[in-house]
């Protein structure tokens, strides 16, 4: 299809043309590079979301009335949603795959220690990859335990010197809980969506609106050649933005990178295909740039709000949470956060990769099929 020399020459020509046009739009270029940095700085220092209904695992190694009463306190709280009862070894796995955000580990002998009037340590393990969840979540856990201690003392009627249960908080991943560490993977995914879906989609609509698209399609240029010539420059642009953001993140904000490049690249690749597909589909159904812009906003806003990019998904109302499953950005962010902060590999992220893969195949495939027929019409 794209094998022969003429085809390759035409693709190179189209890319040359695209870069010329991009270079003549200095405002756009400045915007594309300044915006993510600005966002990084803003979000890097601002944390203000309400964290609720964290998916919680309780590991009850004590199995006594006291340990059950402690679990009941967590269950009764709005902030925690006890969904799992794994073994002690199972916690890591659940956290790797993002099925829980926090785990409460009650060691054997807790009731006995308390009965002896000793301090009983219990473990609170939080997932630090979303810094808001981690810092706010461990704070709430401390409150729940304090309330449990207070009730226990009131009920026993004796004045005990020992403070009762003592929470030992351990943060897995991102132990310094820097918000910027959480922000960077999300920002990287958002950049892909903006540069490729929104900016490239706009460029296609502009070309149709001006008639230059029709003019090109009466020449020997084939739709595939046009698409490759169009997408490549914007994919390169997005890559340059990513490197800039990653550079600022690593060297200025000292964000550690724990993961494998291959996982990040695979996740970004799938998400780029999805974004290209969305951009093309929008440009096909819009007749004017204004229409396209409105449609883009209609996609971008819920994506940013519901994907966990800005607000943690766990703290959204339960009725709304399933919506986030239908947003590709949700899965891209989970993959990137997993890979950046937890160093998760393909195995731990296999669900996320499957879902994002299905999105990529369906959306990109639909866009290519529709484009081949209708791009110039």
């Amino acid at each position, binding site marked *: 299809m794209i094998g022969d020399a*003429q085809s390759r*020459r*035409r693709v190179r*020509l189209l890319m*040359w*043309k695209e870069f*010329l*046009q991009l270079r*003549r*739009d200095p405002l756009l270029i400045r915007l594309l590079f300044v915006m993510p940095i600005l966002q990084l700085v803003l979000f890097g220092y601002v944390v203000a979301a309400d964290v609720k209904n964290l998916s919680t695992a309780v590991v009850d190694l004590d199995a006594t009335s006291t340990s059950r009463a402690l679990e009941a306190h967590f269950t009764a709280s709005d902030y925690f949603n006890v969904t799992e009862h794994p073994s002690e070894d199972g916690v890591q796995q659940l956290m790797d795959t993002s099925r829980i955000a926090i785990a409460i580990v009650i060691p054997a002998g807790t009731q006995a220690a308390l009965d002896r009037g000793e301090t009983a340590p219990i473990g609170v393990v939080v997932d630090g990859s979303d810094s808001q969840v981690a810092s706010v979540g461990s704070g709430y856990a401390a409150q729940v335990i304090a309330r449990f201690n207070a009730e226990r003392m009131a009920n026993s009627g004796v004045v005990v010197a020992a403070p009762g249960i003592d929470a030992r908080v351990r943060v897995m991943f991102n132990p310094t809980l820097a918000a910027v560490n959480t922000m960077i993977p999300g920002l990287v995914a958002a950049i892909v969506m903006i540069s490729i879906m929104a900016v490239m989609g706009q460029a296609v609509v502009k070309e149709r609106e*001006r*008639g*230059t698209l*029709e*003019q*090109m*399609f*009466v*020449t*020997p*240029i*084939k739709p595939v050649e046009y698409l490759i010539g169009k997408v490549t420059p914007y994919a390169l642009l997005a890559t340059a933005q990513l490197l800039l953001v990653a550079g600022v993140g690593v060297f200025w904000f000292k964000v550690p990178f724990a993961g494998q490049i291959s996982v990040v690249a695979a996740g970004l690749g799938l998400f780029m295909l999805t974004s290209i597909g969305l951009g093309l589909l929008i440009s096909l159904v819009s007749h004017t740039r204004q229409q396209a812009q409105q449609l883009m906003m209609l996609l971008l806003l819920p994506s940013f709000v519901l994907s966990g990019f800005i607000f943690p998904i766990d703290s959204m109302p339960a009725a709304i949470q399933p919506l986030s499953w239908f947003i590709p950005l949700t899965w891209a962010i989970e993959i990137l956060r997993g890979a950046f902060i937890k160093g998760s590999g393909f195995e731990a992220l296999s669900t996320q990769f499957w879902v994002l893969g299905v999105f990529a195949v369906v959306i990109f495939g639909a866009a290519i099929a529709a484009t081949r*027929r209708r791009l*110039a*019409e």
Partner: protein
Amino acid sequence: MSADGRHEGLAGTPPNPDAALSVRGLTKRFGSFTAVDGIDFDVPRGQIFGFLGPNGSGKTTTIRMLTGTSGPDAGQALVLGEDVINHPERVKQRFGYMSQKFALFEDMTVEENLRFYAGVYDLSPDRFARQREYVLTMADLHGRENELTANLSVGWRQRLALGTATIHEPELLFLDEPTGGVDPVARRQFWDLLYDLAGRGVTLFVTTHYMDEASHCTQLAFIYRGGLIAEGSPHDIRRDAITEQVIEVSVGDVDAALDWLEREPGVEEAYLSGARLHAVIDPAAAGAGTSGAGDPAAVVADYTGRLQRAGFADATLVTVEPTLEDVFVNLVARAQQP
């Protein structure tokens, strides 16, 4: 050819591979609306084929089907002998297209646009150098190669678009309303360029809604509401399409005379033509009751008398050869009758 100037003979025949363009039953629908309704025509090679019709009649839609950018709902089309509907790629190298609105890249320079389209058509460096020189000379753009096309004025843009559309020396050129929005002097200059191309053997397919441009063409087709209502050379169309007599009326009070004519028995159509009025007279009805019915001179005398009696003492009448505009008004009026 039938009385209304239409090639009824073509419908149902196979398309002609020797013609530059051969179209049979070509149809395009947008939802329930039929924009082009089963048209048939042939354009022999070397012609300047004028595709005429008012705005919204289906000219652009037809061109887009013939250039392979829009798929028809029914019908066949051969372009330079190739099936453009199913295999547009076989012939794209051999035709050029200048669209209705300026479609070069406005944020690129003259030189960059030429270089881009030369590359798209895979011109060798030598041939590009030669064609670039030709286009710059033809469009009078020497010295402005590095200007953004957004900064060119309309006339220049039009000539640059023509040059770009012909940079690969096509055998056939589609021009969709190439003179839209251009002043009369620039229109004349542009037609000179088109004659020049035709002189070098290029077949031209030109759409326009300026009836006065029809006489520049060697062959014409009139499209109205998606259907062809006449086809042939300008001479044939004038001769065949109007069997009625056309009278030109010079009168002081044009508006009142027009009102009066529109209500007068025997007048099929009356309309302004320049500063004068044209009236299409049905000879049978007009002559009724007078001697010499059907004789042009008698009809003129008859209507001169009627107008003067109606108070238009200064009216002078003369029989004229129908212009293409007369033909078109007449054909449209006929097409509108149920």
